[in-house]
């Protein structure tokens, strides 16, 4: 399944957030979108998955524009996991995972044999079988995230889109989620597209990285092509020292400093200030 993005522009009201972007998402690979706060990462992801409409250009999946596709038909091709979704209180793990079968059901939606198999499989892959009768909100953050991933898996789609799947998780749980996604890509051939904040995680787990700056493409390529001091400077306005991970041999950012002085433009300063305020 091919995803082609042609001259895509997305925005809210008068503000354009993604500007005339064109790229192609690699089939059967893990692609990560990185960029500074407010650069349009999530907006791009949402536009590709028809969560928000786009103003210009086109998103083409399998030769068809998603604006013209039936939303239910699209739900059988791609699954999405929004940024920190909250589950209803008291909802059981297996109930939530079973909603992944929604696009395949009719009427009141009793589960077919195929539905049950898919749910069982999704629970197994995410190692949640033993928790299937527990309420989702009684689980840890990492487990909860796995439940949502299991729901997306039960949807049985070739592509899975995730918006910051590791936010609010501790280091170990972050890795657990990313390794799960890596396994799904390797063993099941799923195409995975996600937004991540941590460039080192992006480098370690992705085949391709899409770097955005101010709603435009700053770079698109392998971790080796993207993880360069020049590109990170352009994207994050940082002075980065790049080395190689002694274990995975992937490029990593060992340390970095903010760039001060003439190269730091006003917009960046605003962004930074907003981030500071937001985190307080």
């Amino acid at each position: 399944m091919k995803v082609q993005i042609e001259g895509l522009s997305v925005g809210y009201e008068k503000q354009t957030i993604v500007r005339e972007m064109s790229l192609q998402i690699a089939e059967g690979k893990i692609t990560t979108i990185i960029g500074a706060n407010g650069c349009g990462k999530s907006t791009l992801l949402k536009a590709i998955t028809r969560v928000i409409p786009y103003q210009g250009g086109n998103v083409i999946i399998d030769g068809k524009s998603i604006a013209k596709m039936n939303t239910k038909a699209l739900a059988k091709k791609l699954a999405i996991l929004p940024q920190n979704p909250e589950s209803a209180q008291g909802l059981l793990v297996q109930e939530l995972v079973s909603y992944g079968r929604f696009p395949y059901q009719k009427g009141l939606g009793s589960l077919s044999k195929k539905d049950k198999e898919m749910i069982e499989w999704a629970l197994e892959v995410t190692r949640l079988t033993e928790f299937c009768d527990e309420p989702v909100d009684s689980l840890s953050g990492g487990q909860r995230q796995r439940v949502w991933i299991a729901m997306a898996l039960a949807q049985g789609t070739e592509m899975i889109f995730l918006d910051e799947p590791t936010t609010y998780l501790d280091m170990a749980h972050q890795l657990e989620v990313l390794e799960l996604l890596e396994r799904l890509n390797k063993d099941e051939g799923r195409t995975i597209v996600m937004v991540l904040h941590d460039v080192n995680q992006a480098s370690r787990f992705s085949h391709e990285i899409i770097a955005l700056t101010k709603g435009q493409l700053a770079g698109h390529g392998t971790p080796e092509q993207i993880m360069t001091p020049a590109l990170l400077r352009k994207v994050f306005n940082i002075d980065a020292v790049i080395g190689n991970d002694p274990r995975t041999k992937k490029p990593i950012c060992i340390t970095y400093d903010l760039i001060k002085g003439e190269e730091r433009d006003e917009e960046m300063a605003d962004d930074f200030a907003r981030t500071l305020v937001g985190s307080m």
Partner: protein
Amino acid sequence: MKVIRKVPFYMQLPVSILFLLIIMLFAIWYGAADTTLKDVFEAIFQQKGGQYRSVLLELRFPRVIAAFFVGSALAVAGAVMQGVTRNPLADPGLLGVTAGANAALAGTLVFTPAASYYVIIVSCFIGAGIGMILVYGISATVKGGLSPMKLVLAGAAVTGFLQAIADGVGILFNISKDVSMWTSGGLIGTTWQALIGVVPFIVIGLILAMIMSRQLTILSLNEDVAIGLGQNIALVKWILMFVVVLLAGASVALVGNLAFVGLMIPHMVRAFVGTDYRYVIPMCMSFGGSFMVLADFTGRIMNAPFETPVVSIVSVIGLPFFLILVRKGGKAFVA
């Protein structure tokens, strides 16, 4: 609560329906007139029924049936609103929907004092729709919507405003008595004629709610998730809002302005069946119906032969419940 949830739904529902039937039987059986169980059965199954046959047939039967439908309608309307807004404090009575219907009803009585039931029902629907639009309009002006508490505040403001209109119209045109006859929140004097006019709308609303229950479950999770699962959320929301207007408007036509039923019942029901609306909706019908029949029955016998207004009884139970809910930060009553 976990123990209750272990009981499968196909056992919970029959038990709750049995409970409903028993309460309905008692409500028909007991009253100011000294009827026996034999009278009741004869009135139902035979063409006789002793001296109280007309009391039973003309007064108690329609009243109990009306109580059931009003309770079901308000409980389901509350559940739907809570699901659509993902706000556990949503209730047609608290968010201005029934107050809107109420105000429209007062206005209608001014222009057509002898309005037929259909005219009154339709004006209730329009008023309910306006009440809902006002509250959601206020909510929509804030980016990302209002928090549960603020939405309730907006609802209180709109309710106060619409109530003032209803009262003002009543005083200005000297029809306060007619308006309060409708809106004192009682089922006193419900006739078969009123039932035949209103109940079909409630039945349609309840059936629609049932048909939409699976969609509502998905929508109540998260809007982006619902889109991702292939739901046409705009269409689904419109249909569900229509259901709320239908149910709340029809309830007002029967019983007047009544808050808290739509708030309480869905929360109680979720403690038994969880959060899937395929189970919540039918359970709300039987639970809400039982509650309303019981509340009306209590109002009738508590200080017989005088009537205690059902709205007082519901508020006495509802207000503490609301306060507990607020104290819990608007979280659901689920284990």
